[in-house]
């Protein structure tokens, strides 16, 4: 359960960005979370509800965009969507690849501030 620590740094980052812009309030926090980020959206939401009070993000909406995993086959030079089993089987040659082009994202994407 490392989501509490990640939410703590998210709120700190968001507050710092808002302050840089001279804003006092954060209305929306948009996160991008890769399917292979190792972070659970529900646990993040739980942490957000508990931790956002008494921060500039109190009352804000937490929006979490999930980024699907994308594998890459170097032999076929092909990027492909990965199924939920996370085994990166190239749809063209059938070989299993270890290369991940997308899916590890753990990002503060956007804020709405005033």
């Amino acid at each position, binding site marked *: *359960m*490392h989501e509490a*620590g*990640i939410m703590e*740094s*998210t709120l700190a*980052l*968001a507050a710092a*960005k*808002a302050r840089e*812009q001279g*804003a*006092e309030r954060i*209305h929306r926090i948009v*996160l991008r979370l890769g399917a*292979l*980020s*190792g*972070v659970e959206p529900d646990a993040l939401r739980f942490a957000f509800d508990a931790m956002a009070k008494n921060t500039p993000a109190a*009352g804000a909406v937490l929006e979490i965009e999930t980024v699907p995993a994308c594998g890459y086959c170097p032999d076929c030079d092909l990027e492909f969507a990965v199924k939920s*089993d*996370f*085994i*990166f089987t190239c749809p063209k040659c059938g070989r*299993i*690849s*270890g*290369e*991940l082009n997308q899916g590890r994202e*753990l*990002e*503060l*994407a*956007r*804020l*709405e*501030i*005033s």
Partner: protein
Amino acid sequence: MPSNSATAAPIRSLDVKISLLEANDRLAERNRADFLRRRLAALNLVSSPGAGKTTLLERTLDGFGRETKCAVIVGDLETDCDARRLRRPHTPVVQITTGTACHLEAAMVARSAASMDLTGVRLLFIENVGNLVCPASFDLGETARVVLLSVTEGEDKPLKYPPIFKSAHVVLLTKIDVAEILGFDRAAAIANIRRIAPQAKLIQLSARTGEGLDEWCGFLRTLVPRT
């Protein structure tokens, strides 16, 4: 909630696009640069509790550790039991007790490394807190990430914990001396490792009988920076 008052500033959208782990990632890069400057390789050892990280390190320090100077940073929630097991006259060891934290972070490693005498050390083992989930997200600045899977666990564990196995440079299948008696299907486990972590080097070993330790130490030798 947005205020309706006429004096309230309008709501603006701000693209940020920074990693939530930016602070940790930055410190991890600093660690990596520091290790490079000291000409040492760092290994991040990750597994479930009880997969045999400490026992493997004991054997490694007693053999390989006599020819190549090693150091160990070991993380646990509580106690210095592991540090006491690992301490050798020829090996500096630092214990990190994380309290409630379920993983090591780059800052803890930086503090521990700064507190040790790393003169002459070529290989730094970082034994992470026993946990297959949280350590996946936290770069420590390691040269290689080593994930251990013991035969006392399920053959399907790699399928259940994809992020950590996908991030492995090396997967060690440990305790193979007891695989048969436990009815552990090694072929199935290996197939699962290959499917989830095709990028990883796979070594099968038993710290107790010594089987596979030559291959493990051979791999360690390839990591040691030339001086």
